[in-house]
């Protein structure tokens, strides 16, 4: 599903965010990405989403060699990846329903199909009663769940989450992890960036550990 071949990323400022990173993620896997802030977690995610280009090496996602992907293909490629952000990137000028419907509208789904899928996704994250609310009125945990619903509404093959439990208490973050696990159980590849070591211990999944842009750990815990 994801393969990095000696990938380096050096920004224009000279800062080296990733140094010769090699790893492979199978389809249907669930894994974590960890490291201190600035270790390269976000850069790695951005490379997968093609928000950045690597300075060296090759990135393959879902069979695409990203460096060779024509610009016109980029939107269609991204439709297969769900992304959950730490700051959830919700739009406060529209309802929860419209936020979650966005990926489907963009992909051109028929109206009724959008309604069905959005309600299914909101039901999954237990926010069906909030569909008419403005996300601004929701709590942090609820906002994060709206972000998750939006990420999965299009049934992506790959789900990326950058610090999804960043500012949530342990109970809420457990809830969210349970959700991710459920998505993984139906076949979605899930990759979660976090610096929460307790969480990693609890989840007992494969962990990629980054230190100053280098991949120093690959396996279950340490």
């Amino acid at each position, binding site marked *: 599903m994801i393969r990095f071949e000696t990938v380096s990323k050096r920004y224009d400022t000279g800062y080296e965010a990733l140094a010769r990173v090699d790893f492979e993620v199978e*389809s249907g896997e669930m894994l974590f990405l960890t490291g201190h802030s600035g270790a390269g977690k976000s850069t790695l995610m951005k490379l997968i989403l093609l928000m950045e280009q690597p300075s060296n090496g090759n990135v393959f996602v*879902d*069979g695409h060699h990203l460096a060779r992907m024509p610009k016109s293909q980029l939107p269609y490629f991204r439709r297969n990846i769900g992304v959950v952000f730490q700051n959830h990137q919700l739009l406060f000028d529209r309802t929860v329903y419209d936020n979650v419907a966005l990926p489907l509208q*963009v992909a051109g789904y028929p109206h009724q199909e959008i309604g069905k899928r959005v309600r299914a996704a909101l039901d999954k994250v237990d926010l069906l009663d909030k569909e008419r609310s403005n996300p601004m009125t929701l709590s942090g945990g609820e906002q994060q769940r709206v972000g998750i619903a939006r990420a999965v509404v299009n049934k992506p093959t790959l789900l990326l989450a950058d610090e999804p439990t960043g500012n949530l208490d342990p109970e809420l973050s457990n809830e969210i992890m349970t959700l991710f696990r459920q998505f993984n159980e139906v076949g979605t590849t899930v990759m979660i960036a976090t610096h929460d070591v307790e969480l990693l211990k609890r989840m007992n999944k494969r962990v990629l550990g980054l230190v100053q842009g280098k991949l120093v750990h690959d396996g279950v815990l340490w």
Partner: protein
Amino acid sequence: MKSNRPSKPERRPNRMGASATPRNERPRREAPPRLENVRPQGAVSSQMSWRDKFDAWSAHHSNSAIESLLRMLGTPLQSLMTWLVIAIAIALPAALFVVFSNVQQIGQSWQDSSQISVFLKKEASAGQAQDLRSRWAKRPDVVQATYVSPEQALEEFKLGSGLGELANHLDENPLPAVILVKPKIGGNAPDALTSLQQALVADPLVADVRLDMLWVKRLHQFITVAERFVVALAGLLALGVLLVIGNTIRMAIENRRDEIVVVKLVGATDAYVRRPFLYTGLWFGVGGGILAAILLALGFWWLSAPVTQLADLYQSSFRLQGLGFIESLQLILIAGFTGLIGAWIAVARHLYQIQPR
């Protein structure tokens, strides 16, 4: 290549194109068996029929059109000001065009009646004059020749000039006999006219020949110059409209930066992101065009009464022609098109700078 690995018979059809490139031949861990029968996922968009896609496409068009119009009406004062700026920039050259086409019309009607006035010497008798008239009427380059006796000329002068009282006090008729010659050639053949004029002036009875064409030609030349001026002005003002709309769209893009970033991240095509802004530009243009048409209609209505009175004073049946319905529609269309182009330029310049970071 796959036959080398018979141990993996149950693999899910792999969209990674494993058979196509050797780099995918690296041994991979087998996925857990429960993955074999999950619901279909992935390229969901390919499951949609063309009809669905077309419906979605046209739905997004009408959504973008309506939504951008509503957004505009949501800030009525701001939008009205933009519309007015555009309307004034469009109405100015349009008004000048209309005025010149009116002037041209006057010129045309005078040109049609263009004639050569041949003034006869005092000693020419009415009989000689009639002879001359019938001789000239037979010339191939003359359509018509009319004799106007001094008495007739005086009558016309009394009626037409409003100075009839003055004429009554004259001891004798100061006006000469005139033969009005209508040439066959149009105003575009000045050489032929000149040779005709020379032939007429050669007759010993002729005192003077007046070619009424000259001032018509001057008027034409003046209109040509003025038209070029208006074209240049219209070009500059169109550029102004493009800049106004471009700037307005740029601000609209800036205001919706967050939305653009998110929409791009969830896989919106450039066309999808562009569409609402193009409609915004179109509406600005169309709104400005409608206002311009209204301004013009009001302006010409306001002018038409005094112009009619002026024309009456000159005994002309000339009436000011404003912008007709079709021309107003054309004006609105042109304005809308200009708005669309302005939006397109702004979108091309600014939208691609906004990328998810």
